[in-house]
């Protein structure tokens, strides 16, 4: 703007004082326009289609949580650092290890590799949301406790969520099918045998419960 005003076409007509006034006035108009255009943005009718509002309501573990989300923020970051749900772990942060697995509309996803804005209208389930209101553990959690399925257990919540998601799709898997179904998760303690034993027992518990 300053550059435009200083173009040398008619320098004699614009005094220094008048020029400063114009700059201040137009600056005020520009900043006021933000308020003028704010209302339609909130109604989802911004000038550019698909523009995104940072404040959102996220459905996490059955609760509606108001949260301010950066446009470049991943779901794992929002869950851990904005909503305090640190049961979801961040391992590789590159969709390789599976520690950040959560269910989005009952389907397992790597929460490190999806934007929170992408899932604004979907149901998110983390490991914190598995137990029932009276504190009874989810069958998969109970099976892990009973089988002592993990060593360090950093990968555990990811494995549990992947199993919960997989068992929804295939409630009666063989051990090999289960291994394939939760193959998107890594355990650096190499505890796979115990993990698979836990998860096979989890499938039994789930069937008994229904």
């Amino acid at each position, binding site marked *: 703007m300053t550059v435009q005003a200083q173009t040398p076409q008619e320098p004699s007509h614009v005094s220094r004082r008048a020029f400063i006034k114009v700059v201040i006035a137009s600056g005020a108009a520009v900043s006021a326009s933000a308020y003028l255009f704010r209302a339609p943005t909130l109604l989802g009718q911004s000038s550019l*289609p698909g523009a995104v509002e940072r404040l959102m309501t996220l459905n996490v573990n059955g609760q509606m949580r108001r949260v301010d989300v950066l446009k470049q923020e991943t779901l794992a970051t929002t869950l851990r650092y904005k909503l305090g749900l640190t049961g979801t772990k961040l391992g590789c942060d590159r969709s390789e290890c599976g520690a950040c697995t959560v269910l989005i509309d009952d389907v397992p996803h790597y929460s490190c590799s999806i934007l929170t804005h992408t899932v604004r209208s979907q149901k998110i389930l983390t490991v914190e949301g598995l137990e029932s209101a009276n504190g009874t553990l989810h069958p998969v959690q109970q099976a892990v406790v009973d089988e002592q399925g993990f060593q360090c257990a950093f990968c555990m919540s990811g494995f549990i969520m992947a199993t919960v998601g997989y068992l929804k799709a295939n409630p009666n898997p063989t051990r090999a099918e289960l291994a394939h179904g939760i193959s998107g998760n890594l355990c650096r303690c190499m505890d796979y045998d115990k993990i698979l034993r836990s998860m096979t027992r989890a499938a039994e518990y789930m069937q008994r419960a229904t």
Partner: protein
Amino acid sequence: MAIIHDVMPVFELFQPTTVDDTLALLETYKKDAWVLAGGLDTFDWLKDRNKRRKVVVDLSGVEELRGVKTTADGGIEIGAATTLTNLVKHPFVKEKYPILTQAAELVASPQIRNQGTVGGNVSQDTRCWYYRSGWSCYRAGGNICYADTPTAINREHALFDANRCVAVNPSDTAPALIALDAKMVIRSSDGERVVDAEDYFIGPSIDIMRMTVLRPGELLTAIRVPATWAGAEFYFEKVRERQVWDFPLVNVAATLKVANGTIEGSRIVVNAVAARPMRLTSVEDAVAGKPRNEETATMAGELAVQGARPLAHNGYKIPLMRNLVKRAIRGEAQA
């Protein structure tokens, strides 16, 4: 390079709900815009700070890009943002084009298939680890190929058609789609163009910085699979070091029409041996009219690897590719 676990650098995000709005955004921002589908390729680039865009256009809200439709000619049209899982689960695809189901099911891990899209799988960038680590190689605009130096580790790299860059195309669905003679539907604000799947991919001699014919402002909206090869004999095999997650060392996709033990026609495609999926037309011509037997299979395998130029560490890909093509012609059950 150290792995950065911090939040990605800032970008402006758009979540359009129609293809028209998407194209308008891509037209407005051109080279500043990055198309985000599943994000499995995207986020590595953005998180590692190796590529950066001012604007990210997220396709997750564009309903018309999702789903598999049957077309009037008996083929199918796959929306580019259909997830791999939804493609795998589709009963009609499984019945008529099981090669596509197989290829999609062998991609990466369950979570990645739940999110990754077909359009993303075919349009993804190469996985050359020098390039993806942010080295300023030819493909990144520099003037050296780090994967082709005397000390380079290049086990995963190209056997064919290398031109300065020796990276390969890592897609599993791409060779299956080429074997089915699929057509890629590309839209921009100027209109629509349809290219053969085979011509969708480009090598470094055409443009060293792109993997596909997509130009800024263009969007792959759908993939049409004609009925031509529906119900033909199919073969797909992927060899990788880990039986999950991993990219192919070599994969092969073949469609064959066989009558009375004679191969009447075929399309044979191998990927991860060049910067683009390689259709082996010389092999197709050679096996046409031949009986489907061991002799033909052996001949096809030998012919397939003619002209291969191995690098220091990827010589093993030659027998691997030879045997995969051989098995494709034999059509034996997969191990």
